[in-house]
């Protein structure tokens, strides 16, 4: 018998909060969908629904364009606390 699934059932946090639009300036709203290195987290890990994942993607890409969040975080310019700027 294979090991039992230990994870919680995933659910969309945006659906729960009834978010109808994700603003690219409101970093706190999509911070949850970013990895430590500011990559967009996949749906299989966050549990976002398709609709909200698309909104998140657009918002994150816009925020990147306007230098609100970085495109990449690499070892060349190390930031001590990457999420410090998002508040």
């Amino acid at each position, binding site marked *: 018998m294979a090991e039992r699934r230990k994870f919680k059932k995933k659910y969309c946090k945006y659906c729960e909060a009834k978010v*109808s*639009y994700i603003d*690219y300036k409101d970093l706190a709203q999509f911070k949850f969908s970013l990895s430590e290195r500011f990559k967009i987290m996949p749906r299989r890990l966050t549990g976002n629904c398709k609709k909200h994942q698309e909104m998140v993607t657009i918002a994150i890409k816009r925020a990147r364009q306007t*230098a609100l*969040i*970085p495109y990449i975080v690499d070892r060349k310019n190390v930031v001590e606390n990457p999420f410090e700027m998002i508040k």
Partner: protein
Amino acid sequence: MNCYETLFVVKPTLTEEETTAQIEKVKAVLIKENAEILATDDMGMRKLAYPVQKNNRGYYTILFYKASGETIAELERNLKINEEVIKFLTVKYTKTKEMTQFNKLVAAASKKGELAEASVVETPVAEEAPATVETTTEEAPTAVETASEETPVAEKTEA
């Protein structure tokens, strides 16, 4: 007429007057093109997530306005020419859900603007207030407090 939102970043090297002059310049373009400016949101000086044209900081401003489509081309042309503007982004709001969000943003921005205006009004009374308002958003509450305290004084002087 469509609803648009334009965010632009002005270079940090400019003085306060020069920054406001640049913002006015952008607004003038919109007014010339018969756009209806609904609200202005001053995000103030912010750290950029990555250096842009060797700048590490920038002065963020957001304009909410109603305009026809051709206006955007003219506005973006002007922003591109302007060397003091290092970044800009225009977003269009069309769907009903987006429109509700847009109205919400406009309301929030205009509210913020009114508070800033209130502090501007009381400048002749208290000279310390404007400095605190301009520097950071964190200090805004204190400025508001001073504004509420100072306004009765201002009214008295007017009367």
